[in-house]
């Protein structure tokens, strides 16, 4: 069983449970500690050193994301020493990073937590270093793009690929300053075990892993509408990102909020091209005597529909009609379809399509 005890956080007594990390307790207490490599779905890595805090009795600062609480532990999350550490840390990250004119990490449309944090805390300006990290310029997969000069090697993407999606398509490759996010033999993602779930994009804190489809559209310029994915029966919640009246991106709500816990699959995240596809049906159509379909008005099409169904009913009875409803449509629409079948046309021959 886990023990309950208190720890001191910035001078305040806070309840804690054995097994929790300092970051867990701080999150519950509303104390904000910046993180980059932390994702609640992943085992703590303590890799990015952004979340270092002071713990009484520990000579070195400790990563809040990985450091487990102990009874009576005294933690300080903000001090001059911590501020100095962060300034140096961000400076080091920025030294081999692609920067814009303001000296902050370049933006490519994705949420960029490194940029936000460096802007807030300040970063020591160090002479730029040319990083020899390579990407995969020949990767022809249509969805996932990797910009090596925006990567801080926090390994959230590779850990997600190992621990959550469990396909291990990407990994840290090369050594030293050349370390990068690679694949076996530098293959394109289509030729690896990658299932194109795009979880690496969602978890990336710097926009190094990003979407090819919506590349460059700033996230602030997109309107966001929460909805439910229209593919399988898991019911993942999705944020449809709308730009100029079109869905240009689909993302998951943050981990911990909805049934999908921040995750999506390849269809939920990327298979939205059908929405604005040129082959969508745009007008009602009626088959003419020539056997071809012709554009019609809604009035004509609805009248023709009703006449066609009523003619069958008159000649052969209501049970010569069949109504096929759709498990792809909403609950309200299924309700109306069976009501239409039963109340308007008088038959119980109504079944939704997933019946077989």
């Amino acid at each position, binding site marked *: 069983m886990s023990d309950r005890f208190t720890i001191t956080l910035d001078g305040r007594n806070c309840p804690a449970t054995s097994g929790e990390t300092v970051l867990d307790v701080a999150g519950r207490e509303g104390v904000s500690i910046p993180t980059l490599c932390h994702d609640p779905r992943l085992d703590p890595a303590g890799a990015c050193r952004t979340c270092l805090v002071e713990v009484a009795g520990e000579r070195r600062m400790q990563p809040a994301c990985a450091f487990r609480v102990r009874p009576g532990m005294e933690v300080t999350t903000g001090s001059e020493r911590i501020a100095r550490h962060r300034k140096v840390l961000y400076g080091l990250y920025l030294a081999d990073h692609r920067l814009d004119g303001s000296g902050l990490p370049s933006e490519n449309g994705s949420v960029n937590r490194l940029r936000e944090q460096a802007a807030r805390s300040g970063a020591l300006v160090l002479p730029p270093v040319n990083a020899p990290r390579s990407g995969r310029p020949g990767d022809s997969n249509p969805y996932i793009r990797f910009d090596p000069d925006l990567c801080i090697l926090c390994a959230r993407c590779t850990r997600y690929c190992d621990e959550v999606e469990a396909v291990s398509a990407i990994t840290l490759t090369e050594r030293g300053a050349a370390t990068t996010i690679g694949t076996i033999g530098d293959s394109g993602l289509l030729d690896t075990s990658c299932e194109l779930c795009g979880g690496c994009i969602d978890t990336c804190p710097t926009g190094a892993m990003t979407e090819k489809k919506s590349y460059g559209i700033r996230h602030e310029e997109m309107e966001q509408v929460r909805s439910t994915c229209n593919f399988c*029966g898991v019911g993942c919640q999705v944020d449809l990102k709308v730009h100029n009246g079109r869905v240009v991106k689909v993302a998951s709500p943050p981990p911990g909020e*909805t*049934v999908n816990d921040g995750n999506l699959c390849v269809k939920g995240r990327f298979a939205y091209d059908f929405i604005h596809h040129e082959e969508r049906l745009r007008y009602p159509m*009626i088959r003419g005597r020539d056997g071809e379909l012709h554009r019609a008005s809604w009035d004509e099409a609805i009248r023709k529909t009703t006449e066609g169904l009523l003619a069958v009913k008159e000649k052969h009875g209501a049970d010569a009609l069949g109504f096929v409803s759709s498990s792809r449509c909403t609950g309200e629409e299924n309700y109306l379809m069976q009501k239409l079948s039963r109340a308007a046309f008088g038959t119980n*021959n109504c079944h939704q399509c997933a019946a077989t």
Partner: protein
Amino acid sequence: MTNSIPEIRDADLLFVIGSNTTEAHPIIAMEMKRAVRNGARLIVADPRKIWMADIAHSHLQLKPGTDVWLLNAMAHVIVTEGLTDDAFIEKHTEGFEAVRKGLSAYTPEGAETVTGVPAEAIRQAARDYANTPRAGIYYTLGITEHTHGTDNVYALANLVLMTGHLGVRSAGMNPLRGQNNVQGANDSGATPIFYPGYQRVGDPEVRLKFEAAWSVSLPPEPGLNLNVMMKAMARGEIRGMYVMGEDLVISEPNASQVEAGLNNLDFLVCQDIFLNETTRYADVILPAACFAEKDGVFTNSDRRVQRVRKAVEPPDEARADWEILCDVARTAGYPMPQYESASRIYDEMAALVPAYAGISHARLEENVAGLQWPCPEPGHPGTETLHLGGPLIGRAGFQVVEYRESDELPDDDFPLVLSTGRVLYHYNAATQTVREPGSMAKAGRNFIEMHRRDARRLMISDGQMVTVSSRRGEVQAEALISPRMRPGCVWMPMHFADSRANLLTNDAGDAVTGTGEYKVCAVSIRA
């Protein structure tokens, strides 16, 4: 599902049968992977060596269609080794004695002969399942798409009841629903035997309730299920059809029969977002809005009602399905109310369905994770785990289940068993996913997956185009020689309009549900 998706990660044992979870329900598969990482035991029963079998502690690679034998043998072990939860059986169930007696013939050794699964593996799986308190069963269409699909489900339910694995967090009976709203469509009454909320059409009191609510007299006899409707259409008994959001020609078994039937119709109206194989027979086509262009709710596998919200406008004159249905009803002379929004339709339905009554569009604005039915009143938090503290219906009934062979078995002319299913990158009739570059890059054409031994016997090499034939039709597909298959068994996805698996499949249906036998039919293959 009697449990909820977030409970999966806390399970100590997962028994996954007839579910290719990583491809058909990828996000539930992530939860299962997490459970296994946390130390849960995973037992997979599937004729194919699917991805989940790679991380499973035990893979029971049974012959297609022999599930009842396998499950009865597991029950046999549980009973003979005294692993039953007698207190649960006594308090919460009925009919156990008959089941217990009926199981004596289903020995693990007998099961090995019929199913091909080693007797010792069956014994071990049965012991592990019975002895683990938080043990959940997860199944999909590999269980239900058989002429004995209902028997398969009963056999699973018997296992659940005799071990008391019900009404416990992370332990229960969990069908994973294939479509976004298959649960909701059933809940809403789009079935020939139930009004909304599973209220029986054949019950006169129920009929009176709906007649009063809808101010109309209603037909007393239950209707035809979809499988029977397709056959009635082929016989000329169904003469007019209204098809919303479904491609019958791709999705229904024995597709050439379906096409012949559609050709016979006096009148067909299709309401959809794209032209498809079925619209070729339509007299009228009504253009509909897709999910991103309308409001409403979907209900997922764990009974979670969640909002669908309009994000963009439909193309040109396309309209939401619910608006079109209202117009058709009114033009036909039925006074469908003037609903201002989908939320009003929901309210009308919820007033008739007790399990939905506590949920409204307004409540779903505040509950970002949705609300799970039953949710009988507005203050109710929804129901995460069903049957806590005992079965909802009082006592749960055991069912005696006897093994029956599949409708069509392999013979000299058609010596291989074909099962069909879904791949990760496509969705059902694939009208949406064939228009997606990534899906086409990963899975651009049809294939027939087979064991090397069968390929060698037929002189077929990997990647070669072959002809697959059954008594009902034939298709061309690329041979995929794969270590995932059992010898004698082949597998084909059902997505591709230019190479339709359902020209081959058998439309014999389950006696209760009418679900077609997509998982077993006899085929031959030639180069």
